[in-house]
């Protein structure tokens, strides 16, 4: 799913109770995508979106990089291992974590106009 107008990510962080884990965080996101299946993300995610997933291993970073996803929001309080984190920093993919479930986080994003 992709919105017409990009939306600023920073103001959403409090709503999502999200913590930024990587060095950088993108200014804007153009939409959101929820999936825990990597191939599904490869097939359907649009570039520039925020990807919500419970998957935390380094392939998440690879897939995000392949699709030029703006940032990955790890839900249900999941934290990546240090290898994934280092790789994300290198690939310029922002990793965020939230205690909210994918469903709750997506709901908040939807309410916020994404």
């Amino acid at each position, binding site marked *: 799913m992709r919105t017409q107008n990009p939306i600023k990510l920073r103001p959403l962080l409090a709503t999502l109770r999200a913590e930024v884990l990587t060095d950088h965080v993108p200014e804007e996101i153009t939409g959101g995508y929820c999936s*825990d*299946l*990597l*191939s*599904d993300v*490869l*097939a359907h995610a649009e*570039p520039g979106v925020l990807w919500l*997933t419970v*998957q935390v*291993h*380094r*392939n*998440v970073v*690879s*897939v995000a*990089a*392949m*699709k*030029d996803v703006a940032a990955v929001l790890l839900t249900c309080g999941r934290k990546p291992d240090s*290898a994934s984190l280092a790789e994300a920093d290198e690939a310029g993919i922002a990793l965020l974590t939230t205690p909210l479930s994918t469903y709750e986080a997506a709901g908040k994003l939807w309410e916020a106009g994404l």
Partner: protein
Amino acid sequence: MISPPASEKTEIAGDARKVSVAQVLVYELRVRDAMSKPPITAAPTESLRSIQHLMKEHRFSGVPITENGTLLGLISIEDIINALDHGHINDPAAAHMTRGLVTLRDHYSLLRAVAEFDRHGFGRFPVLNTSDRLVGMITRGDITTCLMQHLEKRAEEALAHEARLRATHTADEAAQRVVIRAPVRTGDYDSAGKISQRMRQLLRDRAIDPEIRRRAAVVAYEAETNIIIHSLGGEVSVTIDPDQVVIEAVDVGPGIDNIEQAMQEGWSTAGRLPRELGFGAGMGLPNMRRCSDRFEVVSDSDHGTRVRSEIHLRKAGAPST
């Protein structure tokens, strides 16, 4: 005594032979290249007054006096000042001009011309051709201007040459085929994406359209993970040409029982571990086909599986065909 190595010797010889561009130009350029032409002349019968006006008009400090193209003498600014001083400004040029002039030939090198300026201390020389006709005038300023112009031209040529070399280099690079080939091991989930990442970088270096880059990345990534998840091991090769990228995944088995079934979205034979990692969605092959311009799967239980994907490349911003 230790003799210096051969390479050092060569270098010294090279240094001794090094000649600056300006030095070369001074040899190469001729008086005819630098002189002002055609010369502004006056007839011997013309008054010093009218020659004074001529000087003023053209900002010359000396006017050659000629008759039918033959140089007779020269009226300099000093001659005019003297004429004003002594009240003979209305006299004809022939009465006061300097005769027996030192002249330069138009085929002399500028080096020789500079030497003549140094030797005689004159501000200007009339220039004659081999038939003794006056063809121009030359000053030190003319020589400097000429050298500067040619140096500039040389510099521009050098820059243009450099730019051409760079362009050829880039063209060569673009025309070059790059092949990435790497083994992929069964169950090596941590290495998934290594090959596609490298390919993405190469495609980005070639300024390939981002959408096409993403499609190629999906194919390469799925090719890698397919081997990791399903095979007994294999190899992924990526061949990048200027107009296309070909991604081939070859494994040693066990082969796909029913390719038609495998091509259906959602059909998966993946085990529990890959599924937990988010693999095995049953979308690998369909994803690859969707992202390819040409796609082919050949599989049998004896030889394993060979997947070949072809993606046509286009530079970012180029019109799609």
